[in-house]
């Protein structure tokens, strides 16, 4: 079983490329389509390559987390999957493979832990990413795409992220997108108290940004969301009573009416096309008598046409522009990153040991079945009652195999572990039996089907 991560983020790809990927993963239906397509990816012999998968999409990254089928462990199928993903999102002749990064096993685990701990984020220490990873995991479970390997991996990921947050100062005072948005507006406007803000869409970053603006004295804010009720809920749940006094909900169809009087427009809708275009803003700036207009587009795919920035006295910043400007206290962050790396290393080591032990599960199960078969055959002549017989068989099997199983598990961690396992297989003739039972993850949890070798129930048995 290999853990493989393929993805692209703000460091490897531009916003345009991220937008293309993001658009094809925007809704759960689109993601399910992707899951089903990648699940069908087969090798030359017709066997499925991917056993489990999860898709993480945020405004800055799209990552695909896979657990490969046991038969493809160390088979070098990563590039095949990478090409498939590249072709899925871009045209085959676009040669976009380079914008995707790929991590395998230890590197993949370390990468996921870093992402969850917000060490790899555009804004180091930002808290949203952990929630987004949880959502990705829950969705993968809902689509029955997660199995024991990803279950364990994600739980270790959450544990690691929490440990990094509590034991380091990495998240103590991040320079956030919302802080950056306020600081940028202070480079344009003299007195924020008098300014009017229009928020399109009701998202987490929008909420944080509005709270920052309110803190700086802005008292006139309008919120427009496609679902009006959601906008009301957003205000009700996310703001303090004092803050609510500054906020007004308007119909999404009415936001155009407010454009000329708004000084700052924040856009964070989940629309896959431009909400504000060049032709929309051009007449508005004339109506505003050339008063500056500050547009912040914190959505991916972008909601505001980048051409708008060419209009005189209009200043447009998208999420990438803001990210490039954020320069935290590099020294402090570097030091805290080193501490966080130590935590990540130790938890990644635990997970990898567990993963390696999972590789010997088929061997242990085969060995156990072999012993059970021998006992079954021999005891059938002497004991007739099935319950009694099974009890004795299990008891003897456990007693015989307790010590060997413990030693096998320890062997896995040794450098010559694989050769010892091979020797064990040949001694007891376990090879054929160990390989014949490979099931697709989707079939594992079907009612009435036999638990697969990696199924948690089986793992529990050998523990």
């Amino acid at each position, binding site marked *: 079983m290999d853990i493989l991560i393929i993805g692209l983020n703000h460091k490897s790809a531009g916003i345009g490329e991220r937008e293309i990927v993001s658009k094809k993963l925007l809704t759960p239906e689109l993601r399910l389509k992707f899951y089903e397509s990648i699940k069908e990816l087969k090798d030359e012999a017709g066997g499925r390559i991917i056993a489990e998968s999860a898709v993480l999409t945020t405004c800055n990254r799209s990552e695909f987390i896979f657990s490969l089928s046991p038969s493809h462990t160390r088979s070098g199928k990563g590039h095949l999957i990478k090409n498939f993903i590249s072709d899925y999102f871009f045209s085959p002749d676009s040669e976009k493979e380079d914008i995707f990064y790929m991590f395998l096993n230890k590197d993949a685990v370390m990468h996921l832990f870093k992402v969850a701990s917000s060490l790899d984020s555009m804004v180091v220490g930002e808290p949203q990413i952990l929630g987004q990873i949880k959502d990705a995991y829950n969705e993968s479970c809902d689509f029955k795409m997660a199995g024991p390997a990803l279950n364990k991996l994600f739980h270790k990921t959450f544990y690691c992220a929490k440990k990094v947050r509590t034991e380091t100062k990495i998240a103590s005072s991040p320079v956030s997108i919302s802080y950056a948005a306020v600081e940028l507006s202070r480079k344009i406007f003299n007195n924020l108290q008098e300014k009017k803000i229009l928020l399109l869409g009701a998202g987490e970053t929008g909420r944080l940004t509005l709270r920052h603006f309110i803190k700086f004295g802005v008292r006139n804010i309008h919120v427009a969301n496609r679902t009006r009720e959601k906008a009301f809920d957003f205000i009700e749940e996310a703001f303090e009573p004092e803050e609510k006094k500054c906020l007004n909900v308007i119909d999404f169809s009415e936001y155009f009416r407010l454009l000329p009087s708004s000084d700052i427009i924040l856009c964070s809708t989940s629309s896959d096309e431009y909400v504000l275009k060049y032709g929309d803003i051009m007449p508005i700036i004339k109506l505003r*008598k050339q*008063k500056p207009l500050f547009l912040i587009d914190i959505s991916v795919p972008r909601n505001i046409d980048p051409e708008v920035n060419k209009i005189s006295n209009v200043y447009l910043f998208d999420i990438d522009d803001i990210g490039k400007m954020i320069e935290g206290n590099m020294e402090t962050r570097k030091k805290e990153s080193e501490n966080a790396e130590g935590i990540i290393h130790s938890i990644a080591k635990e997970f990898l040991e567990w993963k390696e032990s999972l590789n010997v599960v088929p061997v242990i199960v085969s060995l156990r079945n072999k012993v059970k078969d021998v006992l079954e055959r021999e005891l059938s002549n002497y004991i007739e009652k099935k319950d009694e017989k099974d009890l004795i068989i299990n008891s003897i099997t456990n007693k015989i195999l307790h010590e060997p199983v413990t030693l096998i598990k320890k062997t896995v961690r040794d450098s010559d572990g694989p050769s010892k396992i091979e020797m064990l297989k040949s001694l007891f003739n376990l090879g054929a039996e160990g390989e014949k039972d490979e099931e697709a993850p989707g079939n594992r949890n079907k009612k009435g089907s036999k638990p697969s070798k990696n199924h948690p129930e089986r793992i529990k048995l050998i523990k």
Partner: protein
Amino acid sequence: MFRDLYLVPLLIFIFSYIFIYLGNKKAYNIFLYLIYGGFAAQSALLFGWLYVNGFNLMPVDNIVFFNAWLLMVVVVLFTLFYRARYILVYITPVVALNLLIAFFAPHNAVKPLAFQGQDLSVLLLHIILVLIGDSIFALAFIISLIYILQERKIKLKKNLKLFNKKEIPFYEFFYLGKGYNLELLDSINYQCLKIGFPLITLGIAVGIYLSSSIFKSFMIAKPIEIISLITWLIYAVLLHERIARGVRGKKAAVFSIIGFLFIVSSLSFSLYLFPKFHGLK
């Protein structure tokens, strides 16, 4: 002898810039004190000269020195009013340049016969009005340059760095800190235009009156008059566009820069190429 004393404020201004590069808040305060100290030295020299010579026409070098002092008065008043002391960093070099020009300028005396009695007072009024107006437009010119650079930075999103409040390096706070925003810069620019334009209009009007009374001609179509008229027209158009059509920002800044370049050329014409017009030998 007197001109050697110009070096005192000049050296203070130059010396003060060392503290900018030290990069801490204490040094920044020392820089400000030194700038105000330089201004005090300028004032002391000017009033000393007036005490000795009385309120009379100055030689060219003294006029340039007087212009530097007026510019400093304008800048100090604006920085105090707008609480934007950073402007001093950019405008003080212009004041220092004026002092340097004054140090090397010819010590031409005024022609005593051409202007006498009432005409002399009107000439003094003309010079003072035009110089105050020019100083205000010089400030608008510097502000416009800062605006264009800052606007470019924001438009192109280059060299714009944001820092956590606790982590802002001193120099970043100093150059890009609060109050240093496009709206404020544009507002200062507009204010300069609103104050400077009436002064320069009045100055030109007084100049025309002098020209007609002394040279017995209203308009003799010399380059100085044409340039003055063009300068006045530029600022008039800018003021009209700002009031009527709401022109602001980069366009207004470009207008201000062009206008000031015409002021510099008309001043050069009037002081160096046509000294006779102002009673200079």
